[in-house]
């Protein structure tokens, strides 16, 4: 299946979870948050949350600002 992750296309096996997508991009485990199709996915649900084909995934972290 195909995702749009942080604005870039990402191919993953069908049935992949949020945790799989994070592993695929080498995201750190701590200090990041995930929204799928504009909905925040709590950390505890990353493994259980299956992604649909065409989902928009945003992975955010803290950067310098403010």
């Amino acid at each position: 299946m195909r995702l749009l992750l942080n604005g870039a296309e990402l191919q993953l096996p069908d049935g992949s979870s949020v945790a799989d997508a994070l592993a695929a991009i080498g995201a750190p485990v701590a200090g990041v948050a995930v929204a799928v199709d504009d909905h925040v996915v709590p950390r505890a649900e990353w493994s259980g949350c299956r992604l649909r084909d065409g989902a928009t995934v945003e992975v955010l972290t803290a950067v310098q600002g403010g």
Partner: protein
Amino acid sequence: MADDPLVIAGRSFSSRLVMGTGGASNLAVLERALVASGTELTTVAMRRLDAGGGTGVLDLLRRLDIEPLPNTAGCRTAAEAVRTASLAREALDTAWVKLEVIADERTLLPDPVELLDAAEQLVDLGFTVLPYTNDDPVLARKLEQAGCAAVMPLGSPIGTGLGIRNPHNIELIVAEAGVPVILDAGIGTASDAALAMELGCAAVLLATAVTRAQDPERMAQAMRLAVEGGRHAALAGRIPRRHWARASSPPPGS
């Protein structure tokens, strides 16, 4: 000052200088400035994880034992701000948020309607909300009534360094507020920070004035001292202003 802590939402800070991390040329410069400032609470922004997967600023704050305060910088609507705050809570495991909802890119002034809406929603969701607001006493009162843990009026627009353009409004906000008033945005130099404290603010939040100074570390130290000096002056009680001179030495022959 250990005997005069800043208390926000039941949490004590010995430093009354809240720093931002934006604008520093690199993390080494930022680190020296943060240490020199003595800050214990420092803002960060939420953005896409870059391709390198770095969380450098968080690692730095953790190492320095400085509490990260996520902001909602860049949000234009209440819905965006609530989503960003929710992501920050997940990423940083904190329910504290510096709420920013700006109206346009040119002035970066807060949008009061969206700001109040966002504040109400976030308080309902259990956040500790520190809103960046206009220097409007009425809006400040409404934000406090909505349950915000502090109100953070601007001195002048973000990044301008124009100082406190309406000191009287800041005094009016301080006079009415039952929560800490934190002067946020517009500070250009140390005297601006001292003035904020003299006007009765509980703390000062600044970033650009330090991070874009020619010597950020030294300016951070200047801000630390200015905030402490201003706080002492506010508590000491200044003399009334007089029209005519009043000799401080005894008259000749007495």
